[in-house]
């Protein structure tokens, strides 16, 4: 204890001496309000899997109302026992394997001291459960103040805590000597103008929300271990008794995550592109993935370039890519820490055998790098509107992959315990379907209204609604408005929302403003509704008439979702006709008179409506090819079945 205290003093001194060399952002004006800043010292003890932390939280009330209390997130208490709301929700709609983990794999966070204005705040602090009233949930700490923090006033809170690092839960934790440490310190909620804290409990289906600030963090780990973190690193300070202290500083970020391991292989490259600021890219790679370094850089470059060109430049000078340890036995070791975003740092994720024409690690790397924009810079409230980050990013990821790495990706499945990949080279990645994940959305299309706060989504389908439905309606909007307009919508949203917490209504308003048309109907149909979409051609008749043929086409709306469409008819003489339909009525009949019969009908021929769950029934042709297609694929399937029978009967 004494030893730790002395190191804490030394580290505190170092923090005060100077900011890291090359920390160019120092002189730059603040981009964000910087109203929630943290100066932290932390020491990792790998023997006990414990982090001893201390430091100062500096919070300024930027609202117009006084704050009578403070609210801190203690996220790791979600894994203290099986009674937290996170655990209950995990059991409810997701895999329950994580809820059965032994006690020695659990995580927790405990406040040792909390002092502000010379007063010990701990005695009055209580755990609250604002979302579900769960008395066993200890993820939100309410700390009453003797005197309110007035608008514009700043309060410093000196704090010390201990965190127990769990075996991986929710992309945080340890595996062997690999540590990924996120949501690890007492973090303030967001105080709002209504006088209330926006500090939700830790839920299974949502991520995080916090204010911007400056982070200055000293991390002490065993000597020789590599550390990656949010921010820019200063030179490592050797410590006594086998420890090193690493210091990272970041301005205008709203979170801080870090990783450490003695086994990382470090690569550094630089992103440079005309019109965009340069970025130092630091890759911390697992040894067994050594050959995939360039794939990570290619993907990160693609994200920085296209997100930068389309939406706005990446404003930080550094980005760190962490290649996490792959859990070789996910049931026992928990999920991966891979595929998660934090400011200026993200975890990618790959496997030992990653086919060159497969999508990993590129897709996950582009996606997580893309979060720097929609989560890191435009800091939306992911507890309540996760779609504003995840959905926008899923849509943008698909677009970047399509642009930067076209015609490359094929479907890859993994066999023999997940270790042996096989690339189905005939099944190519499709931006429209796979990129926006129509197939994952389809079975849960009506499960939740998207405007429902995300933490209230059914945990088992939350991601499909947040990620996939959003990506699909954004793709629909792109096809409806055109890419140029869509790009301006997102760029405007980015520029106005940067370093703020924009709301959905702001996004909707920007979309209408940029499109030059009121798009309320669109967001009513998609975001504010759980309706599904399915249009179909149900009847086509050609009757000989005096002037040639009378052709009748009947199209139907089979689900509740409404969207304007076009109906294309092709006649035997090769001519075509298009009719716009508002899609409102349950059915519409179109009667044509002409010299030729109709030979082909297509509803939404250009597939504008990506949310249409069954596109096959959108068309009709006078010369059906279904028998030929069915013959082809049923014979192929029979060959597969014969092989199944032969294989399983081998032992009979």
């Amino acid at each position, binding site marked *: 204890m004494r030893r730790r205290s002395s190191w804490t003093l030394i580290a505190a001194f170092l923090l005060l001496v100077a900011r890291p060399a090359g920390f160019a952002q120092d002189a730059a004006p603040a981009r964000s309000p910087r109203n929630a800043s943290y100066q932290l010292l932390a020491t990792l003890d790998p023997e006990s899997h414990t982090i001893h932390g201390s430091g100062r939280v500096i919070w300024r009330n930027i609202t117009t109302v006084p704050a009578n209390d403070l609210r801190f997130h203690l996220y790791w208490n979600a894994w203290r026992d099986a009674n937290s709301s996170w655990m209950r929700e995990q059991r409810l709609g997701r895999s329950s394997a994580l809820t059965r983990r032994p006690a020695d794999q659990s995580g927790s966070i405990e406040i040792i001291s909390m002092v502000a204005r010379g007063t010990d705040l701990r005695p009055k602090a209580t755990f609250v459960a604002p979302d579900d009233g769960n008395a066993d949930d200890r993820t939100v700490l309410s700390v009453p103040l003797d005197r309110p923090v007035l608008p514009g006033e700043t309060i410093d809170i000196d704090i010390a805590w201990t965190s127990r690092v769990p075996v991986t839960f929710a992309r945080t934790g340890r595996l062997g000597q690999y540590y990924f440490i996120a949501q690890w310190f007492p973090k303030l909620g967001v105080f709002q103008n209504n006088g209330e804290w926006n500090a939700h409990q830790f839920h299974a289906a949502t991520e995080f929300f916090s204010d911007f600030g400056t982070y200055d963090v000293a991390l002490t780990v065993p000597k020789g271990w590599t550390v990656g973190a949010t921010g820019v690193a200063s030179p490592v300070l050797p410590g006594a008794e086998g420890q090193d202290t690493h210091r990272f500083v970041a301005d205008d970020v709203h979170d801080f995550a870090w990783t450490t391991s003695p086994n990382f292989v470090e690569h550094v490259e630089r992103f440079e592109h005309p019109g965009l600021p340069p970025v130092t890219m630091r890759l911390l790679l697992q040894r067994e993935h050594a050959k995939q370094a360039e794939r990570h850089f290619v993907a990160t470059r693609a994200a920085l370039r296209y997100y930068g060109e389309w939406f706005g430049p990446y404003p930080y000078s550094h980005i760190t890519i962490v290649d996490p340890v792959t859990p070789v036995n996910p049931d026992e070791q928990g999920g991966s820490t891979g595929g998660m975003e934090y400011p200026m740092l993200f975890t990618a994720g790959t496997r030992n055998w990653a086919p060159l024409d497969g999508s990993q690690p590129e897709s996950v790397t582009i996606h997580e790098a893309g979060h720097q924009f929609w989560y890191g810079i435009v800091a939306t409230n992911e507890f309540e509107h996760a779609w504003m980050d995840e959905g926008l990013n899923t849509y943008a990821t698909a677009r970047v992959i399509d642009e930067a790495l076209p015609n490359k990706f094929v479907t890859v499945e993994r066999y023999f315990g997940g270790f042996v990949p096989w690339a*189905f080279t005939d099944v190519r990645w499709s931006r429209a379907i796979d990129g926006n994940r129509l197939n994952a959305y389809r079975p849960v299309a009506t499960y939740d209204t998207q405007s429902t706060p995300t933490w209230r989504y059914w945990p088992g389908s939350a991601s499909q609604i947040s990620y996939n439905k959003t990506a699909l309606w954004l793709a629909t909007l792109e096809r409806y408005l055109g890419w140029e307009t869509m790009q301006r919508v997102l760029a405007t949203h980015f520029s106005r929302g940067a370093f703020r917490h924009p709301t959905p209504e702001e996004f909707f308003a920007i979309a209408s403003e940029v499109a030059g048309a009121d798009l309320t109907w669109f967001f009513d149909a998609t975001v504010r509704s759980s309706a599904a979409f399915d249009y179909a051609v149900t009847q086509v008749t050609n009757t000989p008439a005096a002037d040639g043929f009378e052709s009748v086409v009947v199209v139907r709306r089979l689900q509740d979702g409404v969207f304007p469409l076009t109906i294309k008819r092709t006649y035997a003489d090769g001519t075509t006709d298009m009719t716009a339909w508002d899609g409102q009525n349950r059915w519409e009949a179109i009667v044509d008179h002409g010299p030729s019969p109709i030979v082909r009908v297509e509803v939404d021929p250009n597939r504008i409506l990506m949310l249409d769950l069954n596109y096959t029934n959108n068309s009709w042709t006078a010369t059906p090819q279904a028998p030929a297609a069915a013959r082809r694929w049923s014979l192929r399937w029979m060959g597969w079945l014969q092989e199944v029978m032969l294989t399983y009967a081998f032992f009979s």
Partner: protein
Amino acid sequence: MKTTSEVVSAKPGPETTSEVVFTPRATALGAFLEGWRRALAAPAITLGVLAALFLMALPLGLALRGMLVEHLGPSVVAERAAWGWEAGWAAEFAAQAQGLGRTFTHEILGFGGTLSIIGGFFDAKPLPPVVAGAAAAYAVLWIFLSGGILDRFARARPVRTAAFFASCGVFFWRFLRLGVMVGAAYWALFAWLHPFLFGTLWNSWTAGMTTEREAMAVRAGLYLVFALALALVSLIADYAKVRAVVEDRRSMISALGASMRFLRRRPFRVFGLYLLSALASIVVVRVWFTAAPSAWASVPVAFLLTQVYLLFRVWAKLAWMAGEVVFFQGELAHATYTAAPLQMWPDSPAAEAIENLVSRTR
């Protein structure tokens, strides 16, 4: 077939109480080659098995075809699906499909399909009920055919259809009884050994493991152990069948005992033959790895390639069985160890077995 007499066994018999008898010793390679020769010499059996396989898959194939036609309807999408794999449509179809239709995914395509089948088997992934039913039905058919096939290979000469099916009938109920016992052993392997290997041991050995390469090595080792266990049971079952046919055994318990005694006395050669046969099957699969048709291959080409691959798989299995018959006969067959007499004049099965033995030792 190797015919040297370096192994000498003293077999006290009623007439030769103290006489030393030199018996020829079968070799794994010799039995393997002779097995292939006998399998190749029985094309009707190979084609028959393949035809049976096809005919058993046909009703389900027709049912699936009906589902596909119904879902595609008169759509424009069908035009693309008739040409090549239409991933979007296939997923759409799978989303609304029930039962059989749910198995129609891109995992039926080419060598990926083979990998998924074998991987699923070794990972004990349950088959969809309809497919499991089809596999079970084929297994029963195979049990029925096994008696006739082994008898045919034991005789090493063509038999008539009636004789073939007579043998099938004779041994069907015996093999069914045997199947219950062997099935119980397989069930134990999947119900107990598999969870122990890939649950208890796997979890324990990989709990702190952080590199995939090490984990893959562990898993490969566990697959090897499981495969060996499967091989052991199948070896015992195989030679029980061989002994049942060649020695006309009625008791399947005694056949199993006889099989185990047989294996115990010559484990290396028996296992060597098993490995050679397995290797032949692996070679067939390896060729398929290269030759499997793409999704865009024409219907006749894809169908032909698939059936040729399945033909070789069937052939390899038949040669495997024939090799075991040959090996057994090479070790133990003589006038008192032979196949059941066929109701055909003038052949005497005993004479036939002796003739076979003589021809091999010439």
